[in-house]
């Protein structure tokens, strides 16, 4: 796992801010993201795609998932220009990226992983 996926400094700040609420935040983010991925896969309308991508981008950026946020940004702004095939490909990329970073957030939940 390299820092092109996750902003480790952002995670450190989140841990500081949330204190004992940190694991709950991580869980909420993961649950929320799963439901957003479901929404993205279901969506056919470009406007809906763009809106879901916008929200997903927002929470991803707050959580330091920089590449996930960038992919969502691309979907948000390009949804209306891309072909269905391109969109399916982009949604798959977003899905893959989430699968990539998910273990990091899972492991962050355990106090042993603090410095």
């Amino acid at each position, binding site marked *: 796992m390299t820092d092109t996926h996750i902003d480790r400094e*952002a995670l450190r*700040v*989140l841990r500081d*801010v*949330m204190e004992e*609420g940190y694991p*709950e*935040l991580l869980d*909420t*983010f993961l*649950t*929320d993201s799963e439901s957003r991925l479901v929404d993205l896969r279901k969506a056919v309308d470009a406007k809906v795609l763009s*809106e879901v991508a*916008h*929200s997903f*981008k*927002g*929470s991803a*950026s*707050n*959580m*330091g998932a920089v590449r996930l946020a960038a992919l969502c940004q691309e979907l948000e702004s390009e949804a209306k220009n891309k072909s269905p095939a391109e969109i399916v490909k982009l949604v798959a990329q977003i899905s893959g990226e989430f699968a990539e970073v998910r273990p990091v957030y899972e492991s962050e939940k355990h106090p042993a992983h603090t410095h």
Partner: protein
Amino acid sequence: MQAQEPLTILIAEDSAADRLLLSTIVRRQGHNVLTAANGAEAVDLFRRQQPDLVLMDAMMPVMDGFEAARQIKALAGETLVPIIFLTSLTESEALARCLEAGGDDFLAKPYNQVILAAKIKAMDRLRRLQATVLQQRDLIAKHHDYLLNEQRVAKAVFDKVAHSGCLSAPNIRYLQSPYALFNGDLLLAAYTPAGDMHVLLGDFTGHGLPAAVGAMPLAEVFYGMTAKGYGLAETLREMNAKLKRILPVDMFCCATLLCLSFQRRSVEVWNGGMPDGYLHRIVTGERVPLAARHLPLGVLSAQAFDDRTEVHPMAAGDRVFLLSDGVIDTSDASDQLFGVERLQQVFAANREPDRLFEDIEQALRDFRGEARDDVSMVEVSLLEPAQVKPSAPVYSDSGQSCPLDWSVSFEFRGATLKRFNPLPYLLQLLLEVHGLRAQSGALYSVLAELYSNALEHGVLGLDSSLKRDAAGFARYYQQRNDRLEALQDGFVRVHLQVQPQGEGGRLVIRVEDSGKGFDVARVMERPLDGIRLSGRGVSLVRQLGHNASWSDEGRSACVEFSWEVEA
């Protein structure tokens, strides 16, 4: 960071993770947090809990942030509830929509807690500023209403007091701006028991209510003392002493006080600090200035106060014109004053004496272009004695203790005659007798006439024939002042005797003096002409009282008043 009062902050955000993160940050900064997952929930929460500030996501399901912001701003009304939009919006058009919807600021994702804290603090400052402005605006509006109401009440009360006099008498014309009182201008007029008329035009220093408050006590003294028969000198002394006592040092009252005597056909004037008044002699067209010879009322101590007056003869048709400094101190656009010279030009150009006020007003308008609220003018002329309608004094006693069988004698000697006017006391004593009250005017006129005859012609030896022309008139009063000043000996005795008589009663007044007397037979031969420029007032006394007689070579006068049933 400076300690900040905790605010209640509403967070409207559909993303659960962002909502949790933001609430935690805001709570850790010491505020209370309310959360909503969409715009509709946010509006509902706002309605129920009135948070101080809103953090609002733009894109939300059910109701978006723009619509929620509009509704919240409408609900908040004049209160400033800052709305900070939470957004990763990058398009400038979307950012503009946030502002149009009533957003006050933006916060971009990812959240930075330092920036967030700074923004909350800045918005809180704005919110408090707006609250203070509203509070002060309301306070000012309240004070303003309060002040207006006070002025209305004060004006209503004062109008009652001011109009208890005789400003409506046919010989008085006046012009006063409606709120002149609140510029300190005051105009009063009242009859004396003898049927003379006292007129006061006053001008208190300052403006507004402070300038008006002194008017009440001044009017009270003016009416009270005039009704009781006090002359100008005593009334002036009392007014001066009262104002000196109650007003702060920098407040005083410029005033001109007149006593118009319709019997004597004269006007007595005291002017303290007012602009020159004018006695306009209709026959010659001459305007005799009535200049200020004294400091205003309320300045000098009783010891230093000068109550000396001037007396001028008046003919039928002559007018006395008084004005406040609002007239001559009116300034034009370049701060030039209207001044006395322009006023005199108006006098000179005036063709119809009855239109003098209108001419002056027109000249002021031409000069300045707008009217001032502190212009007071009054013009008085003589009344025919038959037109005089002194108001009946109001008595508050029941009449049970009315004294009906008594006599009393006074002897007023030199030093007392100089400065003391016994007439009001004598009149008050006599008016304890209810039967005499209906004739109080005649009684006072006769008493006043007999007393002034005894003093001026008897004790002071003044020649009444002096008063036949205007120059002699002035000389007469000059001599009166001089001789009174130098007076050592002499006396005036007043004997009053009240006896029951049938159902009513009888009063005998005898007035004696230490003078040389006069040729009674010769004076009694004259017809009862009622007009008294000279002639010792004999005909007045004979007309108003019964059985008037003179004895001891004119040194002793006697007159009777009787009444049938007790009033």
